[in-house]
């Protein structure tokens, strides 16, 4: 059961093809969007001169620069995280199918041995 410390799996249901064709592509789209957002953030620069020749212009421009650099990198990090989830979904689909194929092979082998 989920959350059961004993770890016994009582059952599951899955459509591997749906994981591969419906779930993973949406996650990959989310990954691309986050990556695109990261690129957009990093274009949002503001030179101190655009704020006029006042005392606090440099301080504010530096804060903007730090923000776009830090948060742009953060969004890239998020994109990697989503990409990894998409990869894990595709891998899970393959694992489910492989498990099914192996079971078929075993049963087929039993048939040959008996007959």
């Amino acid at each position, binding site marked *: 059961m989920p959350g059961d410390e004993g770890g016994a799996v009582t059952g599951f249901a899955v459509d591997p093809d749906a994981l591969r064709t419906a779930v993973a592509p949406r996650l990959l789209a989310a990954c691309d969007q986050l990556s695109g957002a990261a690129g957009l953030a990093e274009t949002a620069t503001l030179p101190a001169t655009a704020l*006029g020749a006042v005392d606090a212009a440099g301080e504010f421009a530096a*804060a903007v620069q730090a923000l776009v650099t830090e948060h742009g990198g953060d969004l890239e990090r*998020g994109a990697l995280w989503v990409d990894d989830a998409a990869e894990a979904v595709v891998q899970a689909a393959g694992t489910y199918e492989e498990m099914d194929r192996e079971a078929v092979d075993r049963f087929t082998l039993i048939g040959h041995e008996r007959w």
Partner: protein
Amino acid sequence: MVNPEEIYARLASASPAQIWATAEALATTADTVRESARSTDAATNAAQGWTGEAADAYARRVDAIVDAASLAEANIAAAQQALERVARTCEEVRQRADRVIEFWRVMVTMTAGAGLRELAAALGGELRRLADVYNDQLRAQAVVLRRLTPAFARTTATVPPPGSDPADVARWWTSLTEQQRNLLLVTEFERLGTLAGLPAKVLDVANRRRIDADRTRYAGRRAANADAAARNLEQAVNNAADNHLPADEIYVLSYSPDGPGRKEGTLAVAFGNPDTAGNVAVTVPGTGTTIGSDFTGHAANLRGEMGAEGNATIAWLGYDAPVWDLSVASDLGATDGGPRLASDVEGYRAAAEAAGTPRQHVTVIGHSYGSTTVGYAGMSGLDADDIAVVGSPGVGTSDAGQLGGATVWAGGNEHDPVIQATNGSYFTEDGSTGPYDPAFGARQFDTDADVGTAGAHSAYYDHGSDSLRNLARIAAGDDSAVTERSYLEAPIAPGGDLPMPGASTVYRLGYEHGQVVGDLVTGDLTGAVRDAADGVATVIGGATGILR
């Protein structure tokens, strides 16, 4: 006299349009982040029919992604609003300043003398007040921007810096949530892979990702080293199979595409989980070993001989092993590598302690020049219960007692050309006593007297050998089962510091005379060992021959 035009010019040089454009770019960014959250939600909906533990784990991951993306969107939107406040204030200040300066420009043509000075002072004061309002807004919004914490990084937690104390690293990892650990493995595997003290399974995932990444992002030397590491891991699977060991119990504990010295890369591979094993043995290879060498076979054979249950072995190439050139005559690789080895072993112990494993029995085994590195590790705080050396040209000290309190074992095949050439004391600080000398204080264990010169230096981990059996007993802490070497099979002549004919004395003599050492190291020791490997000649014959 105050000049209002100067103050105005400073305010008028601002470009509200540019500030608005930056705010607009952030708005677009926030919109795109919102779209990504929607796509993630759509993925969740598409997975509605998926149930079971994997589906639950997936749902937790996706929830965390959506949470982080929502926070990221809110952060970017907050930054956008801060920019907009600044832009609005800038415009308002500019409008008021325009009115002030227009008034001044009219009045300046109509006023003179003291009246003009008073007016200039009054209007200048008003412009300064406007500038203060604008400055205050800029400073206030800078504070807002600085307070925005990156969303995904907040979930990620901060990774300790390289070189952190392994025990601190182990405690830090234990303190994280499962979600934080999973995210770190995705986003920070570069840094995780280099931290001593993390669980073997974590290091394995991180370092395999690093190897894969390095193979594609680098060219030249680094890519070649990453490729070599990947090939070596494939070979490790074969070595495990040769010893009936499971392939899924191979862990990459450390890797670098650079490494010290000649930047030939480093790699450490465990057979069995060193965090949970009661006995852990580290094998350190010697001269000529590179990241491309099949050096994991020693550790695989050793674990195979020990038995998998409760035992783990680690093939450690964390130092710059010399190649068969002049560098083999230098202890530089060993003196640099020794502390690295000691530090890594400290990391293995810290990870095991964090896993709740009782204090382990740790053995560190050095082969050939690797024994010299082990010796310097012993003198650099190596926390080992046992140290074993095989085919050793010396361990940096003439006293086993200086190797950190470990029980020291020495194994040497009777016809090992490296021992004979160096007397086992070439890399001893005072050149006197090596590990095969009774005065050294090592326990001599039985190896294989009948191996000929050709294979004697490379046979210590061979399947079925006395040497491997005894190394396994030492590594398993079964000291009483270790068989002793007969004095008749000693690799050096009785009498300790009396060398075999010619060998050590000749080698050292050569070392002290540049031209001759070149011949000895490249033309004698190198050639002799290679010849020996081919069963053609012996080092001693080669050495004396060169000097004639």
